[in-house]
């Protein structure tokens, strides 16, 4: 099993290398090779969930790396990271497969596929790392490939958007590095296992470190008002870029907040929780209200991420087991649903050559299947019970009310109101895009959905329903780690 941990990082890295070295002539062949590597990697990470040992982590591997600085190559997987790891491997595979069929304008397809695999290395490394410095390194690996994807294959205003993305998140990374150094210097180790529960860290160190972590992860997640890089980046990124960005990249922020923020500096988390909660509720409401006024399809979906991640962050901020579990589930659900939404938005924009809601009316007249899928994704995203989005959002509210007291009850109420507003903007979206008479743009678009598109979308559709009906798929092994996290605070 420990071999698989290493393999999960080596396979995509090797894949990226192979794809990059393949001769230029066989671009399509290179993309197929990339897809094969992504598929192999999904098969590599899936068995990690088979052996759920009795320790803190199901599987871990620990090698001394830079002994002088006490840096270890420590990887591991548990119930918290496993669903995210599988989601990453799955979305990378779907995106690579999609790239075989459709390469956005701007560069060669195989370079894009190789970059997707590099991204996978970084994201999987972030979710697997159990050493703070290692975590930071993987966290940074993601940055430049994503920049390249946006700047290389994006929409019309891709360069400013990519620059904003990279500078803004780099600012977050600086704070993360400071936080990591603060903790490792104070404790003499960066091992998350040893640091669990804030072991060996004084109260003031935890406060300072958490403040740094919180801002760093809040940029990534993103948390209002540190979110403004997101709409531009999502809107300008190519379809596969948006899918990866929304599907898993944002989760690095929330995962980091749970694993490191709450895990390593629990006192700091407890101290700052009200602020986080207030900002999360503000994100939910502001995201929803802004979405009500959006006129561009991808931008609307991008802003909806702000609201949805607000629910995840609210769940974390409650520091209750209920809220944290809701956050973990919300993470996965958002990855699946928003991934699907961005795929559909991309397909729509490819066909109609516009994302302007005013021009897209009447889709169900000419392309009933596409409209149906968009309707499904939108209804899932507004948190319809029985689909994946419901659990995370409803139980973030429950967790908040459970925490009790005036502040948290108010935040729960506000979040519930935000849920109604979420319905409002998604219904507005459907009304504009799906209903009404078909305009000239929509009348011209081709309704047929290509085989590769089905291949990329069908798993997401099925998983949205499956996670909705069997939330235990994600939550099965999260109760104990979350108990451990919150147990420290009692």
């Amino acid at each position, binding site marked *: 099993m420990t071999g698989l941990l290493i393999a999960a990082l080596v396979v995509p890295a090797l894949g990226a290398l192979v794809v990059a070295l393949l001769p230029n002539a066989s671009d399509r062949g290179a993309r197929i090779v990339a897809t094969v590597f992504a598929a192999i990697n999904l098969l590599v990470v899936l068995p990690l969930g088979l052996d759920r040992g009795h320790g803190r982590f199901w599987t871990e591997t620990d090698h001394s790396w830079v002994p002088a600085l006490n840096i270890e190559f420590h990887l591991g997987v548990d119930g918290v990271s496993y669903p995210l790891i599988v989601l990453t491997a799955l979305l990378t595979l779907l995106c690579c497969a999609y790239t075989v069929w459709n390469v956005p304008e701007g560069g060669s397809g195989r370079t894009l596929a190789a970059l997707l695999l590099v991204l996978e290395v970084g994201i999987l490394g972030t979710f697997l790392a159990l050493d703070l410095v290692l975590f930071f390194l993987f966290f940074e690996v993601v940055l430049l490939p994503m920049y390249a994807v946006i700047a290389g294959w994006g929409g019309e205003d891709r360069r400013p958007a990519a620059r904003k993305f990279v500078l803004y998140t780099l600012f977050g990374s600086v704070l993360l590095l400071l936080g990591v150094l603060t903790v490792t210097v104070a404790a003499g180790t960066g091992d998350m296992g040893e640091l669990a529960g804030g072991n060996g860290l004084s109260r003031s160190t935890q406060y300072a470190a958490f403040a740094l972590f919180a801002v760093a992860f809040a940029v990534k997640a993103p948390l209002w008002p540190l979110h403004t890089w997101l709409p531009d980046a999502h809107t300008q990124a190519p379809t596969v870029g948006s899918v990866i960005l929304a599907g898993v990249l944002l989760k690095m922020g929330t995962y980091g907040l749970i694993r490191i923020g709450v895990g390593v500096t629990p006192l700091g988390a407890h101290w700052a929780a009200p602020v986080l909660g207030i900002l999360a509720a503000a994100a939910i409401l502001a995201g929803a*209200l802004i979405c009500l*006024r959006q006129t561009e399809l991808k931008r609307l979906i991008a802003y909806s991420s702000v609201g949805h991640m607000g629910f995840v962050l609210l769940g974390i901020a409650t520091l209750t087991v*209920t*809220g944290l579990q809701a956050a973990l589930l919300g993470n996965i659900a958002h990855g699946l649903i928003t991934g699907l939404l961005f795929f559909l938005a991309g397909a729509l924009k490819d066909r109609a050559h516009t994302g302007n809601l005013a021009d897209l009316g009447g889709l169900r007249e000419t392309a009933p299947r596409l409209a149906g899928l968009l309707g499904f994704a939108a209804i899932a995203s507004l948190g319809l019970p029985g689909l994946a989005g419901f659990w995370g959002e409803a139980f973030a509210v429950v967790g908040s009310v459970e925490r009790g007291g005036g502040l948290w009850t108010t935040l729960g109420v506000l979040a519930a109101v935000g849920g*109604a507003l979420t319905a409002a903007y998604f219904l507005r979206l459907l009304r504009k895009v799906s209903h009404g008479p078909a305009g000239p743009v929509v009348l011209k678009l081709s309704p047929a959905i290509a085989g590769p598109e089905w291949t990329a979308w069908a798993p997401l559709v099925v998983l949205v329903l499956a996670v909705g009906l069997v939330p235990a798929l994600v939550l099965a092994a999260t109760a104990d780690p979350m108990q451990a996290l919150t147990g420290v605070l009692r």
Partner: protein
Amino acid sequence: MSTGATGLLIPGVPLLLGLVGLLLPAGDREPRRTAAALGIFGAAASLFVTLLLLLFAHKPLEFSQHWVSFGSIDITYGFSAGVAALYIAIAVGVVALFVQIYSVAYLNDDPRYAPYAAQVSLFTGAMLLVVTSSDLIGVLIGWEVMGACSYLLIGHDRRLPEAPAAAVKAFLVTRVGDVGFLLGVALLIIDAGTSRISVLLTEPPHTAALLLILAGVAGKSAQFPLHTWLPDAMAGPTPISALIHAATMVAAGVYVVFRLYPLYEQSPTALAVLGVAAAITILLGALSATSQDDMKRVLAWSTVSQIGYMTGALAVGSPAAALFHLLTHAAFKALLFLAAGAVIHTVGTNYLSRMGGLRRSMPVTFWSFVIGLGALAGVPPLAGFWSKENVLTAAAHATESGGGPAPIWVGWVVWLSALFAVSITAWYATRLLLRAFFGVSRAGPEWEIGFDDARYHRPAKPHDPPGLMRWPILLLTIPAALLGFAAYAPGFRTALELDQPHLDVAIVLPLVLLAAGAGAAWWLWTAVPGVDPALALGPARRVFEHGFYLDNLQDRLVVRPVRALGNLITATDEHVVDAAVEGSGTTTSGLGGLLNAAHRIALPGAALVLFAGALVLGAIAVGVST
């Protein structure tokens, strides 16, 4: 498999077949048949299982399994139903089955029939989930899936410009109520540590939670002030109106209060709120129904009013009367809507002002209407008479001290408004019958506007509908006429815990009011033949027609402020939050530019700066060394 687990099939089969039906390809012939078969089989199978359980199983049935845990809160799934719940499930199943059969003919040339039939199946399954779930989260799932399906179905008709807006309104208004519902559920399950209803009912009542749940109930059951979506929802195809009004959706709210009644019973505050809302709703619905020109809108407002009777019965402490009225209402309202569909299908308009004289050409439809409207108004011995009598008796009983769990004044409020509404109901029912079926035909060539959801094929002459539409109507006349006598069946009565009907002097007052209302409408009609009796209402007519302008109020107080807030926040996000970020970027590059420019100044200036720098450094060095 235990008997209780069999019950999971009741919501499970229509839900599953609905999902399968959504996958059917678009097309006319084969998919159409498959879709119809899936829809009809789903409703029939679930009805069959319900009947089996009702006849042969040992009740109450209970089956519960662990589903998932969030922290210390255990969520379960399962089936639980007593005889009363099975009765409701039968009503749902029967109406859904008839609606499915009827729709085959009604939408006979609609290319989007397949998703329609699948959505009806999902809708039915969701309602059955609300009725039979043993867990509050299961109820919530069915509750919201119904909202989504109502949205899809109301927005079904592509040719109605108002349909998409009506669909959004239906989902959104109920969703606003569901904010309360979700919070109420949250409070209840946090207290109990589980969402299993049988456990929740043993907890002490939590008034705030119960009040919050009432918000959701008001949304789903179209109670004041969240009733505004229901009249607009008439933009949906007529069979959908039948489904929404008769057995699903609006009944769900009443049913949930019934399900949680052991808690409500202990909270006079919650019952008082429910009672006041019910009294307002009864009158609001009845008065608004008096002046509608659209036949379906008359029926829609009558639903609002009749659901008020049910919540009123709940508020005065008689869940049995509420359920009884729910069952009879399901029968006669389904009948009325399906019969209205037959009228609309054949004359091509919803407007009463363009009907008239249909009695001769559509005798079957006419007599169905007579029975349906008679039951609605409460004419003995039709079904509505018995159940309404039950509600009135319960309310009258609650006006005596110690008569019920609610405060006495609530009893008075509900009783008086229910009594008053009896005559209004008789008035508008008579008006509807006269305007549509009596007098001379007011058909004209200008029929092209308005709700025309069924205008697929307009025959030269109005006639009774084809068999697939006629039979469901005819069969529904039976319960609409006779279901009231079930109150004399001991088994039925014990299941609902209903009192024996007592036909004493107390029924004289409602009957007098009924005769007065119907007589007034009749007199107005005969005094000036062919003129709308509603004109006699004078200036009040417009107020009633617009539902007391509450839509406008809602627009002013909720919709526009939210929009304005959206604009404000969007502007803030762009011009403050993002501008700060962009500003930090431009400031940095600006500073960089300045420094850059400083490095490129001409030689004399540069020499000056260099010497000045040397001087400063020298001074510091001297200062430090001394």
